[in-house]
């Protein structure tokens, strides 16, 4: 099991650990994210990226940052799991891509970009993946209305006479 103190020696004491039930989570500042992940992969055997997602902490009690981006890692050999969380903020939510570490992050990062507008710098093909290309909002942000801004009605009407 990777000890927090080992990571703290390498990446400083800003690293914090917390847990919920069986999940271990390490918080890391965005500036050190890539180095931490890359070290977790090469030195600690976390060779699989299970999932990559984001949370919008707008109006969340006690939250200081707008978005949390989470990397769920798995060590296939030992079965150990670890969640790495980092924070990004408006107006320019940006993170380095981890495409060079885990190719599987390709569509996951596109989804996070599509839903939250978090840009992953260096991603080979950062386009929307779920919403249409011409969509202008990021629908999983908490300040986006649940029923949208009228995009779902933004189509021409085809009538009997017109078809």
């Amino acid at each position, binding site marked *: 099991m990777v000890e927090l103190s080992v990571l703290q020696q390498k990446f400083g004491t800003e690293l914090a650990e917390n847990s919920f039930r069986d999940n271990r989570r390490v918080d890391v500042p965005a500036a050190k994210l890539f180095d931490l992940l890359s070290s977790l992969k090469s030195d600690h055997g976390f060779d699989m990226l299970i999932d990559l997602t984001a949370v919008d902490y707008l109006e969340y009690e006690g939250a200081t940052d707008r978005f949390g981006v989470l990397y769920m890692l798995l060590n296939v050999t030992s079965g150990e799991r670890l969640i790495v969380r980092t924070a990004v903020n408006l107006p320019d939510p940006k993170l380095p891509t981890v495409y060079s570490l885990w190719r599987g992050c390709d569509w996951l990062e596109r989804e996070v970009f599509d839903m939250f507008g978090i840009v992953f710098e260096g991603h080979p093909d950062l386009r929307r993946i779920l919403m249409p290309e011409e969509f202008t909002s990021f629908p999983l942000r908490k300040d986006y209305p649940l029923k949208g801004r009228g995009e779902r*009605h933004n189509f*021409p009407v085809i009538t009997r006479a017109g078809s």
Partner: protein
Amino acid sequence: MAVGLPENVFLTKLDAAANWARSNSMWPMPFATACCGIELMATAASRHDLARFGAEVMRFSPRQCDLLIVAGRVVMKMLPVLQRIWLQMPEPKWCISMGACACSGGVFDTYAVVQGVDRFIPVDMYVPGCPPRPEQLIAAVMEMQAKVRRTGTIMGKEFMARDTPMGPEPFESEERYRIQDANLVQLGGFSAAMTQAGLNRGAGKNG
């Protein structure tokens, strides 16, 4: 008028003969996007056997179809596809909106789901249910056949009068305000003209 017709000859109108033929050989275009599609398949399968009504020939090219069955929710990314399929179908053509989602959006009152396909394409028959049982779809097909016999003409010109979409109100007032707000902040790339058209449609009924 004692014209001696043989026993196996009868006289009718061409329209009536054409409608009889059309109504008994409806070729559906299955636009199945969700669980309604499973019921649609069940309807076509042996137990319920849509072939009894001449509608078992599911064609997967709109060019060969005359009955569009929209089975399932349609999201905003799929709607242009649906509209294109409708336009590609040759006249005369009819449309069945199957299930709560296709008719009204159902429980999916979210940013991406179209709240009823009848807002954007003409719909002749609505089938309620979530999903509807095969019997309900069969009932709709039979009803459709009756409608074709009653109203169909060679040019489909009886549909010309229907130039406005029927069905539920296009917008609820709450949504209208959200669109207005969105227009005020002027989102980049958002087609203001289209929304304006939508607003005008809603304003007559809600405002």
